[in-house]
């Protein structure tokens, strides 16, 4: 059985094609999902790709969270549906309160497109189990609103609950505690500011370090 990974396209999504390639490279089957349909089409996991949904009007992700497909997604999360938001997808999940905290303007006020080094902190989630604890990886970052922010109590809870998934080695955007990705308490919903889907090919990326996120979900779903 092949794991079916849904990939949502919102108006203004940009990275859905590469997310689909990454799912395929990890052995899964990408299933396109449309923002306007209340239907997850039987997906075993869902990826919210990067981009500028609704042109980032108002705030990044603020409009996309109200898309019809998000109601279905939100309903499926308590049952354990694995969900990964990348970049704009991360922003949408924060706006939807499926993940804690928020993404704010980069410290330098410029868009930053750079290959960043990351350390994987928690390898017990459906999105990170293919990595070794403390493993260092290189993945592209490309965002203007990538600085992770949350109040002190939330940050402390994230740390103690193992919800910090990955951290920057060298902070590129002013993220609190160098946080590059977090999960919800249950661990099934994850958000990453860097783009692992663009690190799944030696030819077009800085390497294949990002494949593990997709391989984690695909192997977990096939009932490893």
């Amino acid at each position, binding site marked *: 059985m092949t794991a079916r990974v849904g990939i949502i396209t919102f108006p203004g999504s940009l*990275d859905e094609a*590469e997310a689909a*390639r990454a799912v395929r490279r990890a052995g899964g089957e990408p299933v396109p999902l449309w923002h306007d349909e209340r239907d997850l089409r039987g997906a075993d996991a869902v990826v919210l790709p990067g981009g*500028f949904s609704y*042109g980032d009007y108002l705030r990044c992700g603020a409009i996309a969270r109200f898309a019809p497909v998000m109601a279905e997604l939100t309903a499926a999360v308590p049952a354990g549906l694995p969900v990964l938001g990348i970049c704009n997808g991360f922003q949408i999940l924060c706006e939807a309160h499926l993940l804690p905290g928020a993404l704010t303007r980069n410290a330098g006020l410029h868009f930053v*497109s750079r290959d960043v080094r990351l350390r994987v902190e928690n390898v017990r989630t459906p999105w990170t189990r293919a990595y070794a604890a403390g493993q260092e990886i290189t993945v592209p970052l*490309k965002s203007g609103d990538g600085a992770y922010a949350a109040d002190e109590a939330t940050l402390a809870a994230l740390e103690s609950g193992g919800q910090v998934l990955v951290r920057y080695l060298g902070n590129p955007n002013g993220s609190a505690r160098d946080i590059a990705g977090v999960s919800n308490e249950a661990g099934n919903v994850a958000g990453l500011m860097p783009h692992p889907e663009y690190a799944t090919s030696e*030819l077009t990326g800085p390497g294949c370090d990002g494949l593990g996120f997709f391989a984690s979900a695909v192997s977990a779903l096939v009932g490893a």
Partner: protein
Amino acid sequence: MAAQDTVTRAAATPDQPQPFAELGLTEPEYERIRQLLGRRPTDAELALYSVMWSEHCSYKSSKVHLRQFAEKAPRSDALLAGIGANAGVVDIGGGYAVTFKIESHNHPSYVEPHQGAATGVGGIVRDILAMGARPVAVMDALRFGPAGAGDTRRVLSGVVSGISFYGNCLGLPNIGGELAFDACYAGNPLVNALCVGVMRHGDLKLATADGPGNQVILLGSRTGPDGIGGASVLASATFGGPGDGHAAKRPSVQVGDPFLEKLLIECCLELYRDGLVTGVQDLGAAGVACATTELAAAGSGGMRVRLDAVPLRDPALGPPEILMSESQERMMAVVEPGNVPRFLSVCARWGVQATVIGEVTSTGRLEMTWQGDTVVDIPPGTAADEGPVYSRPLARPGWQDELAAADPAALPRPSGASGLRATLLSLLGSPGLADKTWVTEQYDRYVRGDTVLAMPEDGGLIRIDEETGLGVALATDGNGRYTLLDPYAGAQLALCEAYRNVAATGARPLAVTNCLNFGSPEDPAVMWQFAEAVRGLADGCAVLGVPVTGGNVSFYNQTGEAAIQPTPVIGVLGVHDDVRRRLSIGFTADGARIFLLGRTGAEFGGSAWAQVVHGHLGGRPPQVDFGAEQRLAQVLAAASGVACAAHDLSDGGLAVALAESCLRGGLGARVTLPGDVFTALFSESAARAIVAVRPGAETEFAQLCARYAVPAVDIGAVGGHQLEVTDTFVISLKELADVHGSALPAIFG
């Protein structure tokens, strides 16, 4: 509110004074319009002719010269559509065609850098979309005043943020371009945006309104008061000196919404795929006026348009404003009546507003109505194709000989090893040659997942077909210093450099686009520079066998009497049969031998050394040798099996190229240079490259060079963590990186 001017009223009031001069028309041009119509034009017609006959839209000063691109074009089976279309279309095999074009947005980018540059990207992307292609990558060739000048900070930061804002949000990877600085661009920055798109054979769309009864649909943004007169006033006139009141021109700059353009792209591609479009045109300069006249002139010859059906952002707009508005993110399509419902439902799915505003007729007239009255009634060809054509006077400037006589041979050269070392470091730390990461880090190079090479590589390389590895390489180059010294040779050197950069990735150069940035065509010296540059480029393309497929002319790049250096920016597109065999500039293979290809002479006219160290510009630019360029390109295309890196030599010569290859790959090099070390390091002789050869393949590579009669010298090897020139100097990679990397951040923050 004054009564609407109509055709009836115009006929009845022949002597009513009209503001033709304010709209940029000369008195003879105005008289010609009256003759063509047999009456005075209505306000709307006057507006339409003023933008269509502007320099920007009509090419009235450049046309007589640009003809050479077609007349001298080399025979090429690769060309599916050429000059005159929105963009040239090139067959790259495998059933694929690509279309590419470069266009200027210089004047708006000085007045309002962020929006000016952003809408420059948006405009060229719609040109590519209008050909039926999916846009897949962009590049930007940028030139600014001195890096340290206060206004450069405003202009450069705004331009880069505009390109970043618009291009990133569209989801198009930015894969390269140029960044240069010179005092001549202080009041006239150059912002040239290139876009490349891909389609299958047979998907080519033509900008024609055929088939009487077919419906004309305007889709995308509502029309607003932005950019009115952008083509006629802003892009076709000279900025005055200080105190000229630039504020008055601010409303002429358009405001862009990349999200809407992204929806427009996806929407149009779905409309094309479903076969719902018979003709299509983008709306850029001159907006509705240009799209309707060009579609009608190229098609069945007639069109009726209800101007009051155009959706407006500002209800106060009347016919002249609607015709001239340059509101962004709009397209115009010609659709068979039976397909209109499906067309509109696709638009609705993407949230793109679409409105039927007229229909194709067989009357031979372009007629427009406003609340029932006819306000435009003209033969469309008179506006689109039969505008004024000027053979402007041209004269070789008196100072040209003096400039040529100021030979850099007389300049003091660095003395001894420490002087050579310091010279290299000062070049690497100069803004024009420094690491461009401060700029390129603001651009998304990864999006779409097909970027194989991007800056700081010699050329950008995009994969087209994942199965076969088919791809396209692109590079843009231009050198205003060379072109000032000799416009004919300077244009050819720009062509050669772009050709060489594409070849250095392992691709075969196929076709050329150009953006010709010059001062005022009303200055005979500028016109001479222009004529020489066009002649040089056309001759060069003929010899190299790469046709010009399209381009753009930007005149009036001058502040008061001071024109910019003549700056033709040349884009070359090449096909790469298998991008998995691409060559990077980076030294990554320890022990690889480094070969210097080509001949090196003592050529310093217009060089980076003369400029950076001495502030000198004079003498002759490097010698052009097309045969040598072609043979070098053949070697590079054939070398992918034995080479592990290749880098073209240009500004700053061998010294800068070696430093860049070391920094890119993270490994040092040790070289021994033949002859005069200063000349070997800093000469800018053309038709040269360095190639790092896979250990063990040296003989095979030398034979390859011999087969193509390309001079090749083994000058050393890759390895270690420093750049060492035997008996001359050693510089650690860290010191190179510090000097190269810190220059732009130190200036721009």
